[in-house]
């Protein structure tokens, strides 16, 4: 069953750098790598640089898969193999079941034009064109007519929140806006797979946060499969459905963030998570956020539905007269009320887990958060609803 919705599968991928005529050395390097030799040893004995060795992973449709590692761990090389900007030395890359390492130039062009797009660390944007010209570039090389590609590009520009900037020169945009242009350009091709190579690494923290949020929103809406490269564990855990940790060109562990926190595969992973873990101690107060959608219990289902639609969420928080917390109403619940199957009061889910102490350390609420179906509600002594805590915010606080 897993086979069916696997979009991308990488099998035993190797990429060696070194003089092309070093055939014997290459063979020796493979042999050493297969025996598990480290990159340093291989370099010393053969003079060959093993950028990635024996990397395998698979990505499901609609999944956000994060590859994380320090600089030089081979993560950028891997992502460049996925659209064959780098030719792997050995191994298979299956996209929709087809091995793209065996593609010829024409097939590769087709793959890049329709199935795989990439967002680059510094944008890789064309400074001689305006925003619209950049976003339309992918469609232009594909041969789409001017009007059609500009319409599509405008749609993408609106989606990434750059409405009104379509005729701006790139030099007048900020770093965050440029990265939005890069994302819009990649999405304009309507690819199945989006590759993001340290796309947010050069941005300042606030802008980074915005864009991470934006990316999650876009992914939710468009259901793209995303392979995201980063060196920031915080970002990895925040974004990733699953995370793969790379070290010296080898995959150390692939797991969900929760699993990885609970069972790090080895000391390296532990250190990776832990190093940043101990730097700060957070309280509930620090990590809670304000829900975008709050309705009063007296408002009724229609208001709740309108509010959910306006904010693009699927549940609303219900409060009483003095902001005292009552519960959550989901989209299905509200629809049931509208159709007359339930009363609004019945539709409210009341057994939402609550946190009462705003100054409790985050570590204390981890077990609560891990098992909760909904974000935790934070309620103070006067029963006033103060905010919510999502699983993601708990996880990212651990590694921030």
């Amino acid at each position, binding site marked *: 069953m897993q086979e069916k919705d696997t979009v991308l599968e990488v099998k035993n991928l190797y990429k060696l750098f070194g003089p092309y005529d070093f055939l014997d050395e290459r063979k020796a390097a493979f042999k050493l790598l297969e025996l598990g030799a480290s990159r340093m040893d291989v370099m010393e004995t053969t003079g060959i640089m093993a950028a990635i060795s024996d990397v395998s992973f698979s990505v499901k449709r609609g999944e956000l898969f994060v590859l994380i590692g320090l600089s030089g761990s081979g993560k950028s090389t891997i992502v460049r193999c996925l659209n064959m900007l780098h030719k792997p030395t050995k191994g298979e890359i299956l996209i929709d079941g087809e091995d793209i390492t065996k593609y010829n130039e024409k097939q590769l*062009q087709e793959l890049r034009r329709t199935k795989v797009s990439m967002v680059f660390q510094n944008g890789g944007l*064309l400074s*001689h064109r305006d925003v619209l010209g950049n976003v339309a570039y992918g469609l232009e090389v594909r041969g789409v007519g001017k009007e059609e590609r500009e319409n599509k590009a405008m749609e993408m520009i609106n989606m990434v929140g750059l409405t009104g900037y379509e005729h701006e020169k790139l030099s007048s945009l900020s770093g965050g806006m440029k990265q939005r242009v890069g994302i819009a350009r990649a999405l304009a091709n309507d690819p199945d797979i989006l590759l993001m190579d340290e796309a947010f690494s050069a941005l300042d923290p606030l802008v980074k946060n915005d864009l991470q949020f934006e990316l999650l929103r876009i992914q939710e809406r468009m259901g793209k499969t995303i392979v995201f490269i980063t060196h920031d564990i915080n970002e990895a855990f925040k974004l990733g459905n699953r995370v793969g940790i790379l070290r010296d060109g080898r995959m150390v562990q692939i797991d969900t963030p929760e699993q990885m926190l609970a069972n790090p595969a080895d000391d390296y992973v532990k250190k990776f998570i832990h190093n940043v873990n101990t730097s700060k101690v957070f309280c509930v107060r620090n990590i809670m956020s304000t829900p975008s959608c709050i309705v009063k219990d007296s408002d009724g289902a229609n208001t709740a539905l309108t509010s959910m639609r306006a904010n693009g969420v699927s549940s609303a928080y219900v409060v009483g007269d003095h902001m005292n917390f009552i519960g959550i109403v989901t989209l299905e619940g509200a629809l049931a009320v509208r159709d007359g199957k339930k009363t609004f009061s019945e539709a409210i889910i009341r057994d939402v887990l609550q946190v009462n102490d705003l100054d409790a350390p985050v570590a204390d609420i981890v077990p609560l958060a891990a098992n909760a179906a909904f974000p935790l509600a934070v309620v103070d002594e006067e029963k006033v609803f103060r905010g919510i805590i999502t699983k993601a915010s708990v996880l990212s606080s651990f590694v921030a």
Partner: protein
Amino acid sequence: MTSCLLNFPNINLNIAEPIDEFVRYININYGEVFVAAKKMLSIFINGINGALDMIPWWLMILLVVFATKKLMNSYRNGVIYGGLLFMIGACGYWHMMNETLAIVITAVIFSLLIGLPIGIALAAVRGADTIVRPILDAMQTMPTFVYMIPAVMLLGPGKVPAVLATVVYAVVPVIRLTSHGIRQVDQEVVEASRSFGSSSWQTLFKVQIPQALPTIMTGINQTMMMAVAMVVTCAMIGANGLGMEVLIAINRMESGRGIIAGFAIVIIAIIIDRLTQSLVQKEGK
């Protein structure tokens, strides 16, 4: 025995003679080819010269003023350049200026036709630089008179060998800067272009050349300047125009005449330079 160590030994290596032979051989056996080429080029040069002569002097001055306004956004400079052009005419050099410009324009057109494709090809072929660079260096540093000898032998005196010698001398910067400009385009941008499935031609024409355009324009500007600088030298092989005027002034020891004709060349050079420079800056923005 010892004299061999003190003075350079008498080896008498004679390379010059075979080269002479070679040029003579070409001249005798392929003379008609050169005669035909000369005729074609003459028509080209005279065509441009005729076109320049057809433009009334006031229109030319107005064109320069408005071009300056458009490119540099300054009426003041436009009026200065217009005034300087008027001075050339006032000194009686208008017609000679057109003759000189015709040679310069022809040489620049051919330099670009030859230089741009070579520059692009050089950028594309890895390692080509190591071979071509010394050749370009030699072309640029070789005393310019040296080109004239074979040019005159093959084509006879006149404007055509002048254009040929000028092209050899002035083609270098456009080749160099075109290939340099394309090569220094941000690698990530080229990668991005490829990642969207661009063919090599699409990457070249939609990404590399537009991104390199400011540098390429600088090369074109330098080519123009070098072509202007060649006009006096070319007068020695019978190219009429302002250069000839300077040459005559030297022969007759007429300082005034030489200086004024020289200044006319300077004015042309400055106007061409400033206008193309501001074009570069506009492109770069």
